[in-house]
């Protein structure tokens, strides 16, 4: 019954205006892998993450996600992946728990308030769930982003600079999240921080 998940990235190219940002990027990851994507600023780490997430269409190549032998269609991918990135913001006028409720319901995933609260507790936001996100500090917002990525228990976790704005406690939380996700599915981390890159078993450097 082990429905091993896998991700295959084949020949991804991306152009912006006249420049070639990503040139024939290919790799495969399977259940239990942690992959780190590194490179200079502007080398296309975030763009690659966005392509895998399905937010950006590549100029060439494709991304395939598998559940066992079956390919997961692009429209369904949203249930199978969670993403943390600087560009992804949450709704400021809603409270923490209202944000969680929204992201569960909009994904079509059953929402249990107790599960969300437990998750928020886990990342150190316990007690802040009724506060509007507008009143969160940047570190708290980052933690909430992590919760948002995990609330539907996705097999694929994409972390783009997960440690930004976090203190040492927050960084420990990221470490725990990666460790847990290692058992559950696939993790891809885009970062230049040595500490974060060290979580990974494999590294891909986009500057090469």
């Amino acid at each position, binding site marked *: *019954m082990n429905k091993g998940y896998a991700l295959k990235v084949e020949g991804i190219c991306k152009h912006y205006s006249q420049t070639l940002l990503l040139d024939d990027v290919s790799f495969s990851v399977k259940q239990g892998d942690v992959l780190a994507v590194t490179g200079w600023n502007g080398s296309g780490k975030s763009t690659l993450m966005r392509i895998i997430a399905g937010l950006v269409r590549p100029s060439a190549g494709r991304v395939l996600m598998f559940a066992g032998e079956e390919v997961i269609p692009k429209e369904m991918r949203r249930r199978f*992946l969670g993403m943390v990135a600087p560009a992804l*913001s*949450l709704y400021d*006028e*809603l409270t923490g728990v209202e944000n969680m409720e*929204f992201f569960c319901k909009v994904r079509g*995933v059953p929402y249990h308030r107790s599960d969300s609260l437990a998750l928020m507790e886990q990342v150190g936001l316990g007690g802040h769930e009724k506060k509007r996100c507008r009143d969160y500090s940047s570190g708290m917002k980052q933690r909430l982003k992590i919760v948002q990525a995990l609330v539907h*228990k996705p097999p694929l976790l994409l972390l783009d600079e997960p440690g930004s704005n976090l203190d040492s406690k927050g960084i420990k939380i990221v470490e725990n999240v990666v460790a847990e996700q290692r058992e559950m599915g696939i993790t891809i981390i885009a970062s230049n921080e040595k500490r974060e890159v060290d979580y990974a078993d494999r590294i891909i450097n986009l500057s090469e």
Partner: protein
Amino acid sequence: MKNGRWITQTESSTCLSEALAIWVRDLRSEFRTRYAVNAILMFAVTTLIAVSFSIGSFRIAETEKPFLNGVLLWVILVFSALSGLSRSFVKEEEAGTMDVLKLSARPQAVFLGKLFFNLTLLGALELIIVPAFIIMMGYEIELPGCFTAMVVSAGLGLGAGTTIVAAMIAQASARGALFSALSFPLLLPLMIVAIKGCERAAVGTDAAGWPEVRIAVAYIVIMIIMSLFLFPLIWEE
């Protein structure tokens, strides 16, 4: 492996329930910030007062009233709508939440959710402005049932025709003027029909304004179907 994990991904949910989640969230945000509703109502009330003050109910000849009042009403409603209906998408883009929405929601649900939200705004607009207009301009209506049907159906049409355009301009650069410029040609047929329908409902001729109501409903259906097809194309990059 935790059992709960597999169930989470494979359980089905309807597009409608997801759309409702988006609608509720938009309503919640709007209730707390009043970002769009302020713009729309301010515009509508200001225009209504300006029109009523300068034209009033006495400056128009009785024979011209049914027609001119229809025109003025729809000018106020359409332009008020154009001032605020793009806000729900523009706000997502400005707050940086558009990406996370693209990531977690299916396009049809986003379209329907935003459509419901826009229709709610329009409903509020019509509920406040139409009675005020009738009173302030001395608008006599022979067939109120038909008139209401016309106002409601054209209002729905306004929402149906502009939601996808709002999604496009939120991702463009010139926003404000562009939304009006793009929406107006699409709305003009509806506007002409609405004016005529209201005129006929006010006068109370034999067929009343019912043919116009039917045309407005046809417009709504066509625009929603086309938008459902085309929205995913503009929603994904």
